[in-house]
């Protein structure tokens, strides 16, 4: 089962879990499964049009899914999906 790594800024919306296993054949299915398990994550990952936000990158193992088949990228057993949001540092904005 593919494992999704949740970065610390988003863990407050994933029940504090750092990684979550989601049964899925593609990246799109895995993310949909994640969001249905943790609905609070949805607005942080997707915009109002239902597209992934541009400051959230999704990696399959060490490869950016934008350079694979995006959400249609097929997953193998043991694949790790990483959500990598942009972080800026200490400033209050």
């Amino acid at each position, binding site marked *: 089962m593919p494992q999704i790594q949740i*970065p*610390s*800024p988003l863990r*407050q*919306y994933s029940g504090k879990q*750092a990684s979550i296993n989601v049964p899925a054949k593609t990246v799109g299915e895995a993310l949909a499964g994640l969001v249905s398990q943790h609905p*609070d994550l949805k*607005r*942080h990952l997707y915009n109002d049009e239902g597209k992934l*936000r*541009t*400051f959230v*990158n999704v*990696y399959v193992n*060490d*490869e*950016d899914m934008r*350079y694979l088949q995006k959400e249609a990228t097929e997953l193998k057993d043991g694949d790790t999906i*990483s959500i*990598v*949001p*942009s*972080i*800026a*540092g*200490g*400033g*209050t*904005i």
Partner: protein
Amino acid sequence: MLLCLSFRCYVLPVVNKNPMATISDVKPAEALLSNDEILRYSRHLIMPEVGMEGQQKLKAAKVLCIGAGGLGSPLALYLTAAGVGTLGIVDFDVVDYTNLQRQIIHTTADVGRKKLDSAADKLTAINPYLNLRTFDTKLTSANALELFREFDIVADGTDNFPTRYLVNDACVLTGKPNVYGSIFRFEGQASVFATEDGPCYRCLYPEPPPPGLVPSCAEGGVLGILPGLVGVIQATETIKLILGQGDPLVGRLLLVDALGMKFRELKLRKNPDCPVCGTHRTITELIDYDQFCGIRGQEEPAGNDIPSISVEDLKKKLDAKADVFILDVREPHEYQICHLNGYLIPVGDLPKRVSELDSSREIVAHCKMGGRSAKAVNFLRRAGFTKVYNLTGGITAWAERIDPKMPKY
């Protein structure tokens, strides 16, 4: 002694084995080392990867460090110790007590001083041969290009999105490598952007998150040693770029997880559609980065139109034994530091715990500074609560103006 003398006369016609167009104006052959410097850098000089040639490259190099804070502290300290000849630092901030947990270039005695003055004392004490150039200013679209052109490499130790995009774009436009590091809580990122063939920050993140969607370090905190880990990685990459040695973090994003003590590496590609470094560039000059990042004017405490109450008025109500329900929307670990005997529901839990609140009562919501509680008030108003108010300035304003014995954090 004789050996030293012969070293000193050993002026190399330096050939950079790994030439980078971006640092071509470094003239190591002219950067002669004195005998004192040769002694100082002896542990470098006896390594073939550095040697006299490399040390002279370091001395000839000009590195601009953006910020003298968490990342800037280890960066500036190590680059200075290593013998980087010219170090520029841009900062306009003043040292405060909350900086000392991680900004190791500053000491308790420096609180209240300009970070530049504090940093300058430490750096010149470590290495009197340093040519330190301090820029007491905010980096802006008006000054960035001119400033960057005077340096070979830019090390980004900033703490906010507008400056990150500004640094990136200015690096791309001036052709200077951007040695990037960023931190949040116990996770960090590092990479080298904007080299001639490598990706830039916008290839990775075309746009910043809207304000408020991702918590800042001031809200989320940061482990004090983390900027040390990441800043030292930045310093290492800077030194490698100058020496032309090793494999720089070009096209790679290093993720540091201090809690799991795991280092992971992700592949970065140059995005052909990147607006600043792609094939059809739409950004050919610096823009208004505050506007780009959705920040209008100064960092207003969220939501001026939200019904609010001052700490003075709340105090009067409490003294008059008025029926006021105080809702604390901070996290439990913040409640442990100080509290107003409020009812604790962290803002993230509010949607599922809203039934615990009585909408007929007057509710004053507060957090640390007023940002999260503004969101909470917004949420509750939309949920039908009509008598809910935001405590302006949060518990920090209470500590400053009502109860000076209360700790601030």
